[in-house]
C-alpha cells in the first residue's frame, strides 16, 4: 500500500488560512489501511481544526467525507454537487488525491493533509516499512525476493558496502542491512552461486529517470 504520515497541524492550519468552511476528504484506500486518512482520521482532524480555530476566536465550519478512492475519476466526481459549498478542500489521500481533485475541479483549492512517504506494508500493528521503490522493472527474484533498491540505504545492486555490521546498516541500528538478509536467504535457498551471475547495469528509464510514467492497457481503454 501507499504509506503516508499526517502533516504537522501548524502546516495544515497555515494552508487553511482564513477559510471559513472546509471539507475534509478522506480516502478509503491505502491511507485508511495505514490509519492516516480514512473516516476515523478525517474525524480527528476535523475536531482538531475546529478546536484550534475556536481557540483563536475564528470558528471553522468543517464537513467530513471519505471517498471510496481519490485516484479514480468516478469517485472524485461524487463531490461535484457539494464542492462549491466550501472555501477549500483538505484531502487526506496520498499525493494522488489532491491532484485528481485539482484537475477535476479547476478554480477550487485543494490542500494535502498528509505527506506521502513510500510503498510498504505493516510489519506490526502501527509500524510500516518501505518495501518497493516502484522502479518499473522488478528484479527481486535475483535477490532472494528482497529488494535492494528500496531497502538498501544506497540502493546497491552488487552486494553490501563496508557499512554493514552485524546485519545492520551503518545509518542506524534500526535499519537492517538488506544485503545481509539477501545473502542469508540465498544460502538458505542453496542458490548463493546465483549472486555471482553477471548482470548488466540496471536500466533506469522505467523508473523516474525516464520522466513521468504512464500505464496503458489497450484491452481496457474505451
Amino acid at each position, binding site marked *: 500500500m501507499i504509506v503516508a504520515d499526517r502533516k504537522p*497541524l*501548524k502546516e495544515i492550519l497555515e494552508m487553511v488560512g482564513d477559510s471559513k468552511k472546509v471539507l475534509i476528504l478522506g480516502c478509503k484506500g491505502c491511507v485508511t489501511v495505514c490509519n492516516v486518512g480514512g473516516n476515523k482520521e478525517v*474525524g*480527528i482532524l476535523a*475536531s482538531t481544526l475546529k*478546536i*484550534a480555530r*475556536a*481557540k*483563536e476566536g475564528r470558528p471553522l465550519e468543517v464537513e467530513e467525507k471519505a471517498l471510496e478512492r481519490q485516484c479514480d475519476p468516478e469517485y472524485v466526481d461524487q463531490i461535484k454537487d457539494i464542492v462549491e459549498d466550501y472555501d477549500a478542500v483538505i484531502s487526506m489521500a496520498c499525493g494522488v488525491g489532491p491532484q485528481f481533485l485539482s484537475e477535476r475541479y479547476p478554480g477550487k483549492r485543494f490542500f494535502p493533509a498528509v505527506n506521502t512517504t513510500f510503498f510498504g506494508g505493516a510489519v506490526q500493528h502501527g509500524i510500516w516499512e518501505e518495501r518497493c521503490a516502484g522502479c518499473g522493472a522488478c528484479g527481486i527474484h535475483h535477490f532472494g525476493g528482497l529488494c535492494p533498491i528500496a531497502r538498501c540505504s544506497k540502493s546497491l545492486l552488487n552486494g553490501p558496502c563496508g557499512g554493514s555490521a552485524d546485519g545492520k546498516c551503518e545509518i542506524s541500528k534500526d535499519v537492517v542491512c538488506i544485503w545481509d538478509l539477501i545473502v542469508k536467504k540465498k544460502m538458505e535457498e542453496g542458490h548463493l552461486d546465483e549472486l555471482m551471475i553477471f548482470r548488466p547495469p540496471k536500466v533506469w528509464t522505467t523508473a523516474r529517470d525516464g520522466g513521468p510514467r504512464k500505464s496503458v492497457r489497450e484491452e481496457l481503454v474505451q
Partner: protein
Amino acid sequence: MRLSYPSNVKIIQVPCSGRVDILHLLRAIEDGADGVYVAGCLEGECHFLTGNVKAKKKVQYVKNVLEEIGIEPERVEMFNLSSGEGPRFAEIAKEMVERIKELGPSPVKIQKAA
C-alpha cells in the same frame, strides 16, 4: 462509603477504558470541556488484557495534538486505580479539578462565550 467528589466532574461510563476513543476526548474539548480524564484499571489488571494501556496511548495522542495547537496538554489525563479504591477515585477527581482550576477555563470555551 459515601465519599464526595467535585460535582463538576461528569462521569461517562464505558465497559473498559480501552473503549475510550481519541475522538471522545477531542469532542469533549471541542464542546468546551475544561479538561477530560480517563480513569482506567491498574496496569496489568485489565480484564481485557490491555484496554488501559491502549487508553493511555490514546490520551497521550490527544495530549500531543493539544500541545501542537497551543492548548495545555495537562487538560487531558489518564489515571489508573482499581475498582475497589473508592477514596482514590474521589481524590483523583479533586486533584484534576484543582489542576484545571489552576489552568483556568478552556480557551475554546472562552472564545465561544465571547
